[in-house]
């Protein structure tokens, strides 16, 4: 009897720990997804290089740390800024040329452009930082606290808090500021938004830049709490896609929740299916694609 209860306690402990780690990484999935969703909502373009922007954000942090010894959480600001500019440049230089196309062609071509971009960025990253995995190691990397025998590493916890703050800030921006409302309006009906005096070109560019910034923030957190390497982009783009498809378009709060869900599902399923945990997420993705008729669009009624 006593042996059995000890075994049970160990199982619950392991599951709870997985849950916690799942939440930590899920917050990042949510952050990555929100940027992708924002861009798709405003411009109706799918940037499949989103994961590469995340990767570049991580490497920017790595650079600031290796070259100037800037604490990664402090370098969030400059890396975010750099990626914001990059986002503007990418939009103005590439994606804006697709803006006038018909919706179907636009989405297809934007996906292809994003695809080309992802290869270019991957290559640049390999050239600049080699294909090796990198991680930012600070003096407090191993620190954390324990609660009920469960481990809460500071870095990961900070990452979750940051992701939550970023998403909350975005939500406030979208609901309380005029420009944020313009972004939402453009997402719902760009022609009407234009008729209200919204500069669609400018709104699209800024939205894309914000998307890049959010990706960069996620990348920064990944570089400290986990590891980065040039080929990580595809994996993260897929994660973001899964979350966006789960949560539906333009649903910022929902994206965060769906991200947490994915993180937890993956983490817990590691206990049961081990190295196939990624497959679980992908299978869920395929099921949702098949079963959700409106896919990423989810048009609302009325208006």
């Amino acid at each position, binding site marked *: 009897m006593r042996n059995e209860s000890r075994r049970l306690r160990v199982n619950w402990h392991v599951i709870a720990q997985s849950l916690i780690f799942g939440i930590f990484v899920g917050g990042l999935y949510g952050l990555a997804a929100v940027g992708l969703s924002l861009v798709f909502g405003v411009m109706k373009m799918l940037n499949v290089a989103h994961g590469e922007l995340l990767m570049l954000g991580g490497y920017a942090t790595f650079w600031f740390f290796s070259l100037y010894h800037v604490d990664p959480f402090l370098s969030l600001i400059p890396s975010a800024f750099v990626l914001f500019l990059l986002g503007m440049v990418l939009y103005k230089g590439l994606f804006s040329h697709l803006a006038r196309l018909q919706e179907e062609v636009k989405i*297809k071509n934007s*996906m292809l452009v994003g*695809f080309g971009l992802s290869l270019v960025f991957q290559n640049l990253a390999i050239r600049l930082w080699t294909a090796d995995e990198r991680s930012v190691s600070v003096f407090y990397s191993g620190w954390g606290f324990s609660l009920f025998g469960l481990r809460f590493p500071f870095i990961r916890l900070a990452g979750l808090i940051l992701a939550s703050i970023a998403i909350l800030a975005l939500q406030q921006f979208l609901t309380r500021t005029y420009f944020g409302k313009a972004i939402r309006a453009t997402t719902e009906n760009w022609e009407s938004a234009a008729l209200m005096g919204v500069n669609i070109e400018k709104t699209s560019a800024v939205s894309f830049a914000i998307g890049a910034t959010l990706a960069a923030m996620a990348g920064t957190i990944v570089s400290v709490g986990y590891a980065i390497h040039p080929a990580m982009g595809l994996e993260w783009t897929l994660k973001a896609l899964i979350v966006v498809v789960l949560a539906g378009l333009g649903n910022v709060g929902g994206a965060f929740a769906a991200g947490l869900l994915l993180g937890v599902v993956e983490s817990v399923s590691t206990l049961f299916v081990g190295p*196939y945990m990624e497959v679980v997420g992908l299978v869920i993705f395929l099921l949702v694609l*098949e079963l959700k008729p409106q896919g*990423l669009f989810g048009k609302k009624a009325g208006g």
Partner: protein
Amino acid sequence: MLASRKALFPGMVFAVIFALVPLFTKRNDLINLLVLIFLYITLAQSWNIIAGYTGQISLGHAAFFGLGAIATRFLWVWGTPLLLAFPAGGIVAVIFALIIGHPALRLKGIYFAIGTLALAQILKITVGNVLPTVADLPANYVATYNLVPRYYLCLILAIIIVAVVSLLSRSKVGLGMMAVREDEEAAKAAGINIFRQKTIAFAISSFFAGLAGGAFAFYQVSYYHDLPFSPIWTFDALLITFVGGVGTIVGPIIGAFFYVIFQELFLRTFPQLHVFVFGVLFILVILLLPGGLVEMAARIRGLIATKRSGLDSHANFSN
């Protein structure tokens, strides 16, 4: 673009020249280079069928390449004669395509793309976990390894697929595919069974991708089983096809040539530069020149003809 009789003769000349290469040289590096080119031609051309001719961008092409590789490798290493093991690769790939075809082809546009991407990723992870060790050739196979039959296998495969695509582009089935690409609604209204067209294209495409995988497995001495499932192969197919000229017969061929030659040129100085260059070219093609190198060549020809005769270039535009 329709196959013109004009292209048939130079095509045959090239085929004969390449067939004669191993007789005139013992340089393995040249033969290996050509093998790679032929493989890429098959890989890209097979992708061209589903994406270029039918307009369905598949991002899961590596899945079929991988399935063909695994099937052929295992059968052949276990003693099955190549004559059976090789086509088996293609067959396994087609069977898989037909199984997932119904749910997959139901998805439209980008959902098909990301769906196939997810599917290929699932296969890669699964294979990588089930078969994590290196696939070495047994010692006696290594001892009898001869590059020349592999060369001819890949050459013949490349010739076959180019012939298939040529015939397809002039056949009723092929025209149906292109109608689906141009305007699904209009094609449906004209009585074309969209789903059937897509399925046929998908089947042919996956069959040849599987054969390419089989040839690759036959060619490699040792590799990891999940290598042919890597998304790199899909990306190569996309880069080559689009830069060469998507939806054309010649596009994937010239794309493959340039791709491999670039890779070879920069192998020692800037490895992977070919990916970078083709990535940039790819973006330029999507934004500015959808017909790729084929379109560029046609435009240059048109310009030259205009300069020479002083006539309106339209009159000289060859198909």
